[in-house]
């Protein structure tokens, strides 16, 4: 089964990160790199990506066949999607265990969503 692990930020976690010294931030990036490396080595990693700042978001609208965009930031969203891990692992429990090792989990900012299969077993 594949699971998408979504990592969010909120005002509190963003303030916390902003308060980190460069060394502390480097250690943070290092931690993520090591986790990604470990998941790649175990064969469970499908893809891991960090997203650019929410301010770079373009919201897309189709109007009369024309594609229009509005620029962010969209202040109404306090929680911002920051990054994702797509993993393929043996069980939901395992996906949750991986998610639990993401630092943001301490602040309740990590979610696990099962990926829908295209097929399905017999009923």
């Amino acid at each position, binding site marked *: *089964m*594949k699971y998408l692990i979504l990592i969010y930020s909120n005002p509190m976690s963003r303030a916390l990160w902003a308060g980190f010294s460069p060394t502390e931030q480097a250690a943070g990036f290092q931690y993520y790199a090591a986790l990604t490396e470990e998941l*790649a*080595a*175990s*064969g*469970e*990693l*499908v*893809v891991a990506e960090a997203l650019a700042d929410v301010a770079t978001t373009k919201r897309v609208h189709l109007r009369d066949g024309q594609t229009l965009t509005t620029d962010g930031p969209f202040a109404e969203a306090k929680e911002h999607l920051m990054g994702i891990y797509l993993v*393929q692992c*043996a069980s939901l429990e395992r996906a949750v265990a991986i998610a639990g090792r993401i630092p943001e989990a301490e602040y309740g900012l990590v979610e696990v969503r*099962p990926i*829908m*299969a*295209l*097929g*399905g*077993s*017999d*009923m």
Partner: protein
Amino acid sequence: MTPVPRLDDLLREAAPKAIGALVRRFGDFAACEDAVQEALLAAATQWPVDGVPDNATAWVVRVASRRRIEIYRADEARRRREALVVARDVRPDPDAEEADDTLTVLLLCCHPALTVPSQVALTLRAVGGLTTAEIARAFLVPEATIAQRVSRAKQRIKDAGATFDLPSLEARSASVEAALGVLYLIFTEGHNASAGSVVHRRDLTVEAIRLARQLRARLPGDGEVAGLLALMVLTDARRAARLGLDCAMVPLAVQDRRTWDREALTEGVALIQWALAHAPVGPYQVQAAIAAVHAEATHAEATDWPQILGLYDILLRLSPGPMVSLNRAVAVAMVHGPRAALDQLDAALHDGTLAVHHRLDAVRAHLLEQDGDRNGAQQCFERAARRALSMPERQYLETQSERLKSIGGS
């Protein structure tokens, strides 16, 4: 007219044999497997142009050996040594050429030190002769993920000190059981693919059946090997009937049985009859027996449900699990009525013998509807649709929910 073997089939047959030949000559399973994989890739590009060699396996062995020596020399060069030590690792054993490498390679790939995804990836490559890219497409993951699984698996085999020998008879039963699990997983992955979605996933069922046939040829007396092959053949025979035009799941009860593959059903039934008569019973045999009972019913109403319920009772003892309990509940309903089935489900949930499963609501919905509780059934279908983990399943469950809503007439 004798059928001309397809290129793919030749390559896939050659893979484990070539690995066996190389390992005996050079040692080091990991490096030999890499060399054979490269030889297979070379064959896949050269044969369509230059023609298929008379002895396909010999060609693969020759090219892979050359590649293997290159790998060896590169390694040696890295260690700043001369290349003349190639001979040191050569272990010629002409008698062993006849040894059954396919089985040895399969059991090695399913070594207990490996994780299941690694066993699957390595088996498909080393025994199935599939390329890393093909396996990645079939499992809908990037090639790097599969490559990583394969190399990690080989490292683990090395670390575990496994040798390229057939395990002793006592040790073999555990390895064979692991191999059966791997083959069934490959089959299920392919079988669960939706009709039109990805052709490569269909290849997985074909591959799993082919490998199970090979295993059966090597272990003709093993009841569970026969049972698994029967189960796959019987399940695959219903493939055409199980998805509707809208790609929603079609339950067994309403499948168009005329589209079932009669020839495959006959083969599967014969296999399972042989196994049950000649070998100690096991979970694959019981599942195959259940599939055979369904196969023998020309229409849904003719199904011998008391026999199926009896088989589920055995299966629940042999290998308990939520799916077995849920399927058994359906059989209970057919024999003793929906109320009895609902009561048993509730009791099993209550005493903890049935863990909550994403299919629970779907089964309960069917039982409630049979029991005449349309409202409760509709709510259960709706909840089940929200919890479904596959598209066809969700589509099917949503349709049921809508159907009951419209019957209910607001």
